[in-house]
């Protein structure tokens, strides 16, 4: 048998031509297990707790969000009203040559950012790809599994580039949130300052999105995690303070991920309700006459 890692270097795609041969060849490396201990059957486990509950709820949550976001992206209406612009459609890109929903031109950035996020990867590898469905529960794939070492999942390595793009979109969403503080058409005119339920929702959303974005593992690496010595230079000392702050956010990355996913969906839902005249955007106070 060729050594497996040699074979893998030659083959960029995740596949094994002759699994039987590979399995025979690697038998001396595999464990010998008594017949009674199931190991290779899909979903075999001795766990008797509700191990399936976590992955099943996550699969449900993701599926609902993806359905909602897809419907809204293609709906192409009720996304803007007065000073409120749905985060699914922001920045609003309108071109003569583009005849479909403007959301499609922008949504690939947050979608790609989340799809390559280390937390979401963990969640969907467990819930959708069942590698593994839960700890100590046999997943699928057998010996031909190659994780993120080959195509397609090797693409996850672009995550930091998605982070760069996502920060641009986030800056624009902050700008949109600021717009909600002024009556429509009077941006930065302080005699038209106002605060509405919409402002509250928009600011909560950008705060959650910032907590999520700036707790990113790739960002944690870029601000200082890549250094081996924090105390060596003035620059590395500064990097350490950034790294520590990002680490604090990163410790709850999963929580930020869910809060921001929910808030972004809810913000869009609120804009839809106001834009379709289901509810008005209640204004707490306004300086406009």
């Amino acid at each position, binding site marked *: 048998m060729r*050594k*497996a*890692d040699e074979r*893998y*270097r030659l083959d960029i795609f995740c596949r094994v031509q002759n699994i039987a041969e590979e399995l025979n060849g*690697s038998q001396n*490396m*595999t*464990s*010998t*297990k*008594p*017949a*009674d*201990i199931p*190991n*290779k059957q899909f979903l075999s*486990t*001795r*766990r*008797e707790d509700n191990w399936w509950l976590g992955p099943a709820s996550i699969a449900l949550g993701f599926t609902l969000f993806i359905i909602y976001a897809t419907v809204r992206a293609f709906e192409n209406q009720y996304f803007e009203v007065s000073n409120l612009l749905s985060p699914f459609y922001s920045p609003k890109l309108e071109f003569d040559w583009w005849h479909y929903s403007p959301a499609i031109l922008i949504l690939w950035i947050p979608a790609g950012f989340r799809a390559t996020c*280390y937390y979401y*990867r*963990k969640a969907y*590898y*467990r819930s959708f790809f069942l*590698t*593994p469905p839960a*700890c*100590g529960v*046999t*997943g699928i*794939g*057998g*010996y*031909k*599994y*190659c*994780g*993120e*070492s080959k195509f397609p*999942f090797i693409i996850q*390595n*672009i995550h*930091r*580039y998605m982070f760069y793009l996502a920060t641009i979109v986030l800056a624009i969403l902050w700008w949109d949130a600021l717009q909600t503080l002024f009556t429509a058409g009077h941006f930065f005119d302080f005699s038209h300052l106002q605060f509405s339920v919409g402002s509250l929702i928009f600011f909560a959303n950008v705060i959650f999105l910032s907590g999520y974005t700036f707790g990113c*593992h*790739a960002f*944690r*690496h870029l601000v200082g*995690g*890549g250094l*081996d*010595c*924090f*105390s*060596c230079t003035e620059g590395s000392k500064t990097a*350490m303070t950034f790294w520590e702050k990002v680490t604090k956010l*990163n*410790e709850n990355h999963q929580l930020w991920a869910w809060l921001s996913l929910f808030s972004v969906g809810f913000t869009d839902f609120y804009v839809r309700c106001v834009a379709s005249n289901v509810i008005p955007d209640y204004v707490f106070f306004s300086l406009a006459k």
Partner: protein
Amino acid sequence: MRNAQMRVFRGDATGGDFKEYTVPVEDGMVVLDAIHYIQREIDPDLAVRWNCKAAKCGSCSAEVNGRPSLMCKSRMESFAEGEIIFVEPLRTFPLMRDLVTDVSWNYEQNKRIKPFTPKEDAKWVMYQEDVERVQEFRKCIECFLCQDVCHVLRDHDRKDAFIGPRFMVRVASLEMHPLDQGDRMKFLHDEGGVGFCNITKCCSEVCPEDIHITDNAIIPLKERIVDDYYDPIAKFFKTIFSKN
């Protein structure tokens, strides 16, 4: 005093089965005490590996109700009354007898990692902020529970391509060491199989030392691999700065 119903795996590489035992439970008792009770009072030939009974030597690793655990850290009172407690050997490594497995494959992986290589002009002064990250990794007791639960080794048998989470921790402890100048990135990418880990975090869930294996060791290593192999801009800057 209540009794616990235990099913303990008895057998070797040729076959085996669970054997049922009834064990009286005392205050503060752990699963390893129950196993010792069985050895002392019922089946003296029950094979088990242990040493410290203080969760510090990493010898008593087993699977308790399907969860890779240290037997000396699994409290009997954490099981509900009447719950059957299954104790079986680690599934990922070859069985020797009863609860004892052959974990020597792990020691072979350890030898493949370039050891600590200090800089020639190293000043042997280190500051807390520089060693803090590495200190977390030094807590490892080599119980190999993370190796056992890792699906790459457990389900997919990719021991030919992936060194496993314990050794990702070891590589991280060396790579992030302020005085080390060894480069293990090529090894990690080509032979260590860092890409096989899909960061599903089971290793972190079972680690008795609470090392954040995925967040603090594997993901930072994956990001360093991105610098070297998948990010042309980072590679460009790295080349310029290392020349200067």
